[in-house]
């Protein structure tokens, strides 16, 4: 029987990685991710997990180790936050370009300067265009389940997956988590078949310099140029939409929990006002929605789980009946709007949905955003919309802006 255990988000992530029988781990300490790496060290040193743990000297090396280990066919895991993720940026691209099924937890934290150890999602959102799949979790149960799903997805499409969740809000908060049974995880996620990219019997030069144009190999067969290789990565991410949905469905059947594939929703059917959010700010919006509905306001919530690949058509479908859209998010695309707001507007262009659109940047650097404040923001937006303020620039919630 599966049983519920009270644990933090980081414990859930570490436990999930262990249950996936990861073979190589490399990580470097950074708040608020550190306790994942500590927990995994414990698993390895106590013999509970048979894995090579490489205690690297930097995050750049952490992801490098995963890249090389994954190239020889080992299941590799790392985790990081904020500056750690930024420091590995070169390797974040390299991992995706190498088409390796690495899974990395990003415990979301604000980035400096100035220093902040607290939560927002600027770190992972700023890695949007690296070619990774990005999944955002709303609670600790979703973390354990998503890490397990992430390997299945990554190994199906040969694209690395970043499992993102909010620092402290989830990483250090205890919640009951139903722990799947190991045999079920083993059946769901069979051992990684050695890709054998680096085989001494069949030598190959992996990731050499590639020309812009297609070129014949020594047998006269035309091979991809750089641009075809890029297109294949792009297509793999596009194809990943179906895989993410399918893996989520399969997971729900086996383990009885459905977190939504690309999206999830709460009271969204026939709701006139739709809130869109990602991660813990989405879960924090749920009580606000309950309260507003109790006041007779027909409001619902769409949680974006996959930020990349972005669920463009699914979002359009979900928002088709909306009379107003309000976005809440913990990242900003400086000089433009909130990052999620930009994506949503782009997804809606050309669709029939042409409704008032308000967006809020909230909770940067760990500033509290509670349900009451979210409720007040929604109420205020509805008032403004009624007054004809249909698409203002992004609001900064709870922030002195004069």
């Amino acid at each position: 029987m599966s049983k519920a255990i009270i644990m933090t988000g980081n414990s859930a992530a570490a436990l999930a990685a262990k249950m996936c029988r990861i073979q190589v781990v490399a990580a470097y300490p950074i708040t608020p991710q550190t306790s994942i790496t500590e927990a995994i060290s414990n698993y390895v040193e106590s013999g509970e997990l048979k894995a090579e743990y490489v205690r690297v000297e930097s995050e750049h090396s952490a992801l490098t180790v995963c890249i090389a280990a994954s190239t020889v066919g080992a299941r590799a895991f790392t985790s990081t936050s904020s500056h750690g993720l930024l420091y590995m940026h070169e390797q974040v691209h390299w991992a995706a370009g190498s088409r390796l099924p690495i899974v990395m937890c990003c415990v979301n934290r604000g980035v400096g300067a100035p220093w902040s150890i607290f939560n927002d999602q600027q770190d992972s959102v700023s890695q949007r265009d690296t070619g990774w799949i990005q999944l955002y979790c709303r609670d600790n149960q979703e973390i354990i389940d998503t890490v397990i799903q992430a390997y299945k997805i990554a190994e199906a499409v040969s694209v690395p997956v970043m499992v993102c969740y909010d620092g402290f809000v989830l990483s250090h908060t205890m919640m009951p988590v139903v722990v799947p049974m190991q045999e079920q995880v083993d059946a769901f996620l069979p051992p990684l078949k050695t890709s054998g990219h680096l085989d001494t019997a069949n030598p190959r030069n992996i990731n050499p310099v590639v020309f812009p144009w297609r070129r014949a190999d020594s047998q006269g067969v035309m091979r991809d140029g750089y641009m075809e290789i890029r297109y294949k990565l792009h297509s793999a991410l596009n194809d990943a939409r179906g895989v993410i949905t399918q893996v989520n469905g399969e997971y729900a059947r086996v383990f009885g929990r459905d977190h939504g594939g690309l999206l999830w929703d709460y009271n969204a059917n026939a709701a006139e006002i739709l809130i869109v959010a990602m991660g813990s700010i989405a879960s924090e919006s749920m009580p606000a929605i309950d309260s507003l509905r109790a006041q007779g306001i027909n409001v619902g919530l769409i949680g974006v789980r996959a930020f990349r690949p972005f669920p463009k058509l699914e979002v359009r479908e979900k928002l088709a009946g909306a009379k107003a859209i309000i976005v809440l998010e913990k990242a900003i695309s400086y000089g433009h709007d909130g990052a999620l707001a930009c994506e949503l507007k782009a997804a809606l262009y050309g669709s029939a949905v042409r409704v008032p659109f308000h967006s809020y940047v909230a909770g940067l650097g760990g500033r509290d955003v509670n349900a009451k404040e979210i409720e007040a923001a929604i109420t205020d937006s509805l008032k403004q919309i009624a007054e004809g303020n249909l698409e203002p620039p992004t609001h900064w919630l709870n922030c002195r802006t004069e």
Partner: protein
Amino acid sequence: MPEKLFKVNLQEYMLPGQRACQGCGLSLSFRYILKALREDTIYTIPASCLTVLCGLYPTTAVRVPILNCTFPSTAASASGLVAGLRALNREETTVVAIAGDGGTLDIGIQALSGAVERETDFIFVCYDNEGYMNTGTQRSSATPIGATTTTTPLLTKQQHKKDMVRIMAAQDVPYISVSSPSYPLDLYDKFVKAKRIGGSRYMQIAVPCPPGWGYHSKDTVRMGKIAVEAGIVVLCEIEEGKFKFTGRSKVIAERGKRTTVNQYLEKQQRFRRMSTEQKEQFQQWVDTRWEEYREWSQR
């Protein structure tokens, strides 16, 4: 000597059509490295002249498995290969990282220092052409004093070369060696030996580079020899902290007679702006280091 020559692996792993410049000291060295390390070896190579030498997709000039990695990450990439192979019970495969001096002494030093501190079971090869050659001869920390490069075009490099051998020795790397393609059997023997021993192994090779140094491509072997005769390049091994001159350097050390650096400096365009004072400083730097190595060899 001739008997030794017959021991050299006849198999060629480097094919015709490799893309290094004519007279490249790296290509001479690489051919012997591959022969010495034979099969069951995996290489990881960062951005450098060696990337280009190995060929451009979809053809390759070398018949060995290679994982290209980013410029700073070579030793970490090797660590990942070692970890992955261990996890898959393929430990018998030798993992070799090969980087230029920039990829070793400069941008790669953090990953390298970390990997050897972790006692990673791998060979790290630094081929030292004394500059960023792949990007067109910029200054590196391995460039000698008085050399012009494209980033020290008028005033020349003002500092001495970084002594990476001593940095590795300070980290107690169990096997360290310096070789030169001008003495291929000495180089070959060191790699045969290195393959047999475990732990971290740091192997530096002084590779003359015709376009980067400004001399005719026919003179590469000669340039390497002049460097050794003057003690600018010291062929050696440091095993478990114990320093040993090898090959030609051993003969020179025993005889106690080195040539001056003058011939070396005169034969290369890159030293044409070197001041008399810098020449003296260079000679002094070579002398001091030689003395220190000599004392070390007697410890």
